């Protein structure tokens, strides 16, 4: 396995933290929300209400999933301290296995953000992406960008090392954004296809609507598992859709998810892939267990945040200062705290 990126993550992490040691910091935890790309779309989406019924296939297939997570663990006078972690989970011979990378902790400042971002891009991609040329992202965007980079790297590694498997991504196959450059996503999908893998991307949340209703709410009276096809979805450039979008209702219950399947895979193998997934993985509320585990394993718990705060305090001498909660301060009992704002 190519470990250049994790090594670069580590080096940058240590370098950024060393520079932060002389600055007072405030370690308030804040989970960074993963925003959907909002898909800058036109309103031409249609949902075929005739379901594609699915029959679970028990032909043995490896199922692998990738997810990453990021969290802000504190602030300094010049920037933020963030942590990133990625997890790769696969199911083989009825057993789940995992590989976790991180946490990597970065002190990102206005001063060093460009250097951090570009160094990571160069290390992995040997070039700066089309969005990279526009300059480094804002401080606020940095955690997501670094996490996305780790996620793309994990996806690439999975696509390169697996054969005849099912690769599950968290999110959509929308590309052309700063976090998911088109050529990189294309490259990942191409690598996967070359080794006879099929990429299936599950979105936990979607904002795609048909006639004003969320498409995942428009479920026909049909016994699951099934897929609903969509058509007419067009994104505004430079965003592109590298997959075809489906609504997947894979178990009993009210939940269904947006599922993107690699566009370059022919329709028949696509359905086969979902049927193989049904026969090879466990499902709870239409969501595959492998992807759920990947998410669980990379998510930071409060205990880990405390541990990381302990680490940066001990190892790099950052002083913990509690920023007063402005809502509480100004509104007393009527202030519900910043977490509720």
């Amino acid at each position: 396995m190519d470990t250049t990126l994790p090594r670069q993550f580590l080096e940058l992490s240590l370098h950024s933290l060393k520079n932060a040691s002389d600055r007072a910091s405030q370690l308030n935890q804040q989970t960074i929300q993963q925003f959907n790309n909002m898909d800058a779309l036109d309103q031409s989406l249609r949902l075929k209400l005739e379901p594609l019924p699915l029959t679970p296939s028990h032909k043995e297939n490896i199922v692998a999933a990738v997810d990453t997570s990021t969290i802000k663990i504190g602030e300094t006078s010049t920037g933020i301290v963030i942590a990133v972690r990625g997890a790769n989970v696969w199911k083989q011979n009825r057993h789940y296995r995992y590989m976790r990378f991180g946490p990597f902790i970065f002190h990102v400042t206005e001063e060093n953000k460009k250097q951090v971002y570009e160094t990571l891009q160069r290390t992995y991609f040997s070039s700066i992406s089309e969005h990279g040329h526009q300059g480094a992202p804002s401080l606020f965007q940095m955690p997501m960008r670094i996490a996305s980079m780790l996620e793309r790297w994990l996806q690439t590694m999975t696509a390169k090392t697996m054969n005849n498997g099912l690769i599950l991504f968290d999110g959509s196959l929308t590309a052309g954004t700063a976090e998911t450059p088109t050529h990189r996503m294309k490259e990942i999908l191409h690598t996967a296809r070359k080794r006879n893998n099929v990429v299936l991307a599950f979105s936990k949340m979607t904002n795609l609507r048909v006639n004003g209703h969320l498409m995942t709410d428009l479920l026909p009276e049909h016994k699951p598992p099934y897929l609903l096809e969509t058509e007419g979805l067009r994104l505004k450039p430079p965003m592109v859709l590298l997959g075809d979008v489906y609504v997947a209702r894979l178990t009993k219950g009210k939940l269904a998810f947006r599922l993107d399947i690699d566009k370059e895979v022919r329709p028949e193998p696509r359905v086969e892939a979902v049927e193989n997934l049904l026969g090879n993985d466990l499902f709870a509320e239409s969501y595959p267990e492998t992807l759920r585990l990947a998410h669980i394993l990379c998510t930071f718990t409060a205990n880990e945040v405390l541990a990381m705060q302990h680490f940066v305090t001990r190892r790099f001498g950052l002083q913990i200062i509690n920023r007063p909660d402005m809502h509480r301060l100004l509104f007393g009992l009527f202030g519900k705290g910043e977490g509720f704002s």
Partner: protein
Amino acid sequence: MKLYRKEGNIVQILSFPGETVEKGDYLLVEDPDAGRALIVQVIDVQFASIPGVLEELLRSLPDGGELIKGEDVDPLEIAPHISYIQDASLLICKIRATAENDGLNPSSCWLPSRSQSTIKKLPLPTLLKLARIDGQLPITIGGTKDSALLTIDATSLDGRLNIITGKKETGKSHLSKLLMVSLVGYKATVVVFDLNGEYLSLGLTSDGRRNENHDKIHVLTPSENFKLALKQLNLHVMLGILIHALHLPGTSAREFRRIWQALKERDSLTLRELGETIRNWNCNQHVRDALFSRYHALVNSGVFTDNMVEATSLEEYLLKTKEHGGAIIMNLRNTSSIDRQIVVEYVLARLVESLTSSKLKAVFLFAEEAHLYLRETYWDDIVTRMRHFGIFTTFITNQPDTVRENIYRQADNIFLFNFTNEHDLDVVSRAARVDAETVRSIARDLPPHHCLALGRAVRDFPIVVKVKALDVKTMGETRLFFTSAANQ
């Protein structure tokens, strides 16, 4: 360690891995600005409530209960920090005293600074020194966890009511022997009601040789070397035996009083004469029958004799011990319940008599499983009237609920061995000199031969001590079937 919170006299302290603190340990919470320190004792060790721990544990068990296998690439080595936080513990501590100006006071009315206070372990030798748990008449109970010796002052048992309790085979009798021998060493008079014959060999070493106390230990076995002539008894002692041990009704007791006075006037207080007089006494037939049945009980006990040569003078034994100290062991093994009560009635009455007439200064009474021979009214007597006469009792029991509640309330010292039963712990925790949480938490985890010393002897600083070994011949061991078979 970090001070976390204080509620009443309970302090919670956050402790991290590497800071090895156990139940029973003492900690010093020093506030440098206030110039004083709290002395607290750990009564429980719990996991600290760390946010996210449940998630952490749950996510490692998603595969049908089997641990999910995998590899963590953790280049910054955060995992040890996670374990460090996860393994943090919360010490529940009781405030025992405040150390200020080289002295101690029992106050807990001030609050040390949470941010500035330093917390460190208070070694027991330092605590013993601070609390001045020593004295001029030292009795070494045993060793503490810090390898320090716990030495109490014999005077802390003088004039006091003590309880030694714990479940079977935890070492209660061993401690009582230790206290007894030490008191005898300081020339005290000790009387023991020995129910199982455990104290009979106090005068012998473990290999059967005579020890320095050999001549000071007097074993009296009823109907063998302990017999009484009626002439040795006062009427009120005899009435005590008849009423309390043999349950003689009031009317019959009045007739007995007349019979006794008549015999005394004739100077013919013998068993034979007593029997004859009852037979010929002019009284109601029912009264005569009642008196006769008690008379036969006295005769059958074997404790009474008409042969003055055979008769034992308890007073003589007591006077023997007065000069150089000594222990009178009343061997109640193989004695029936009624005979036990006869003996105990006589001994207690005789002790009170000797003490009121100032023939004796004081007596340390050790009573094993007293509920088996002590009549109802004596419990109150022992903690009030008899204590004023100079009978200082130590109760030894493995059934704490058999000792009256008021005994616990007035106990000055309690030596508590292991108990696991909630009910037993409940009973003991009623003692005035101890708090229920300490008893419940520490006593449950005491290993055999370890006791929690509570009360005046340890200046109200509960201390766990491993009772030291005593070089005396072991007696009173339970006879086993399989051990005997194996040895054959």
